[in-house]
């Protein structure tokens, strides 16, 4: 398994763990407080550890760059589609004259990062063949 695959699996695991913590807290502490589970996303900070060089071995080459570039394009496309769909949903949820709560705005970047990294990771793993 290449460094990029480990990187993608790790990011996917962090997203799934974070989502599962939020969803399991939801019925206990309510929607607003359940968002504390998003702190798990801080583990993304460990990402650079996967791409450090090991005893002079190449861990990232031109094929990885190409795969990463394609994954970023896929993730970016999905992100913008999601953003526009989310904007439409906000109008449906809160009404055209309604007000979006600040708490929703606060967690938005975390969910945006989650979508970006999850899509990027899946696209990366698909290109490597999941192995």
């Amino acid at each position, binding site marked *: 398994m290449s*460094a990029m695959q480990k990187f993608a699996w790790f990011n996917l695991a962090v997203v799934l763990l974070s989502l599962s913590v939020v969803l399991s807290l939801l019925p206990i502490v309510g929607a607003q407080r359940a968002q504390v589970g998003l702190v798990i996303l801080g583990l993304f900070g460990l990402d650079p550890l996967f791409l450090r060089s090991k005893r002079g*071995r*190449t*861990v990232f*080459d*031109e*094929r990885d760059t190409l795969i990463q570039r394609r994954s970023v394009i896929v993730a970016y496309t999905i992100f913008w589609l999601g953003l526009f769909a989310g904007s439409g949903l906000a109008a449906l949820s809160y009404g055209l004259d309604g007000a979006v709560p600040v708490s929703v705005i606060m967690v938005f970047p975390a969910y945006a990062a989650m979508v970006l990294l999850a899509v990027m990771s899946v696209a990366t793993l698909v290109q*490597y063949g999941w192995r």
Partner: protein
Amino acid sequence: MARKSPNPLENRIRRLRFDHGEMTQQQLAERVGVTRQTIIALEAGKYTPSLLLAFRIARAFGVGVEDVFQYDDADRGTAAN
């Protein structure tokens, strides 16, 4: 009708590795500065290398690029007249 191979670039990397003292994929990868997974993908015909990498691989074996990579232009309508 013959089925076209998805990758028109064929290579003899595996053959050349064995001809060069059974060089391992890792040894070749280290020589040309890529990961072992890229060598595996190249040998399987799942990845087309950059021109620079193609030259590096050929130099690692001490041969020309066309001794390692062969472009199959049959039935593709792209051959120069």
